[in-house]
């Protein structure tokens, strides 16, 4: 009957007998490791089996979770795509000078010559009224409507590209102010300004995406926790009987943890498909739109690493939510 546990470190010999002695499976370390692994595998599949055996409940839970995750990760991808759009524009510090209506092309060219002498300027291009019109016709798709106009309404534009070395914003603004003072110029605009504006929009969107992800992350956490709470209630009889025959809290927790794992993981997978599916639907029209603007814009989908993060985050949140509920509720169920 007496059997010495060979693998127990013998720190306090004989003083205090280990209460757990003779209450656990014997055998070699590897036998026990194998049994432990089998138990995990069994929990993994039996929890999946339970989800499948209650398809209605499972689909409802996983559906809600998948939508929450899809919302957060979908918004994130929108931001990523916007960012891609603005990153191409970042370098441009070009200044556009719109000539006053009465300035002729010859006059504009003379004025352009004078700008060319400015040491801060690298390149000057004059866009005639006709060029501007052609370009507009080509890209706007309003070609025929414009034919109807008797007079070309577009002004002559001089595009000024400051020296590459000129990166200081104050100096650029000073240059811009100089151009604004010229009598020929109706108004001057630095591309940088609207790039900045766009970037600040993207920045705001990014912030919203982060906040949304945090909020919906909490939703995943709470929904998973609540699902586990309901499952604990459904299986309380089993929990109590298991405790009656010597189950520890952690043994019972383990079988429920896998339910949390599955709902988190499956929700992540479904969310991935939902977002990818929506992107596939909008892709043709988005790329058509960008084609009109001469853009080489390609809609970005989830990358490999983003997919991994998505699955890890959704699984992790559900597991942590489950764990917290289990930690507090399993203790409270005791045999009578």
């Amino acid at each position, binding site marked *: *009957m007496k059997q010495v546990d060979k693998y127990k470190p013998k720190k306090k010999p004989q003083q205090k*007998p280990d*209460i*757990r002695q*003779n*209450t*656990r*499976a014997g*055998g070699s370390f590897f*036998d*026990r490791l*194998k*049994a*432990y692994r*089998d*138990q995990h595998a069994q929990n993994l599949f039996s929890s999946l089996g339970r989800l499948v055996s209650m398809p209605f409940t499972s689909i409802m839970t996983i559906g809600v979770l998948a939508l929450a995750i899809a919302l957060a990760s979908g918004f994130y991808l929108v931001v990523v795509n916007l960012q891609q759009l603005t990153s191409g524009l970042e370098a441009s510090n070009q200044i556009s000078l719109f000539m006053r209506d009465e300035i002729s092309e010859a006059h504009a060219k003379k004025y352009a010559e004078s700008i060319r002498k400015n040491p801060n300027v690298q390149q000057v291009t004059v866009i005639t009224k006709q060029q501007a019109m052609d370009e507009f016709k080509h890209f706007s798709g309003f070609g025929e409507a414009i034919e109807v106009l008797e007079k070309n309404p577009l002004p002559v534009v001089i595009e000024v590209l400051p020296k590459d070395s000129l990166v200081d914003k104050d100096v650029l603004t000073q240059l811009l102010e100089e151009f604004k003072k010229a009598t020929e110029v109706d108004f001057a605009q630095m591309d940088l300004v609207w790039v900045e504006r766009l970037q600040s929009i993207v920045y705001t969107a990014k912030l919203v995406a982060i906040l949304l992800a945090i909020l919906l992350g909490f939703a995943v956490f709470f929904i998973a926790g609540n699902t586990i709470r309901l499952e604990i209630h459904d299986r309380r*009889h*089993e929990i109590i*009987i*298991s*405790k*009656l*025959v*010597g*189950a*520890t809290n952690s*043994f019972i927790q383990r079988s429920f943890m896998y339910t949390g794992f599955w709902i988190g993981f499956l929700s992540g997978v479904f969310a991935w498909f939902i977002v990818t599916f929506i992107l596939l639907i909008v892709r043709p029209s988005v790329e058509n739109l960008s084609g009109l603007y001469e853009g080489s814009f390609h809609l970005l989908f989830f990358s490999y690493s983003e997919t991994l993060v998505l699955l890890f985050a959704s699984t992790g949140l559900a597991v942590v939510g489950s764990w917290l509920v289990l930690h507090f509720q399993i*203790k409270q169920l*005791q*045999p*009578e």
Partner: protein
Amino acid sequence: MLKFENVFKRYAETGDVLKNISFHLKRGEITFLTGHSGAGKSTLLKLIGLMERASRGQIILDGQSFNALNERHVPYIRRKMGFIYQDYKLLQDRTVFDNVALPLVIAGYGHHEVARRVRASLDKVGLLGKEKKFPLALSGGEQQRVGIARAVVNKPPLIIADEPTGNLDPELSAEIMLLFEQFQHVGVTILIASHDISLIEQMNHRVLRLDHGQLVAG
């Protein structure tokens, strides 16, 4: 093996349910615990199974005082006991095999060992061949024997039974008692709460009698 020393159990609502209980169960002994309804039989068994803690006095199992135990140790102490109940407490959605295997799975046995021991245990109670049945497909006597198989499957030194024959006819009850005597022969200590006087008298074992929470014989 199991010792009670001046044990009291008090509930806030009902006062002292057990008063100054002392006794000693020796290894390999069958003992009946009897008394009127409400005498405190189930309460006494709950103290042994650590479902409740004594208010005063101490309980010692195999040299281990329960007063020194904390919650963390309770599952391991319970593995040294097998519990048998009047209502069997089986899992209805698990097969006979899975019900009996539960204590072994919890103790961390590998599946070969589990299968071997479950079959041995079912063989002892005469239910070999019913592994794949669900409890509801069995008679009351058979369900009780599944409960017994589960209680003895990991060979605990102590078996605690609360009215194990409460739902069974005299013939089946006698069969269950014979089963207990078989376990006794291999050194298992058995404590049976029952108010089936005729059954108790029929068998020649020690009797502890409770009356309003006090031990009056034993």
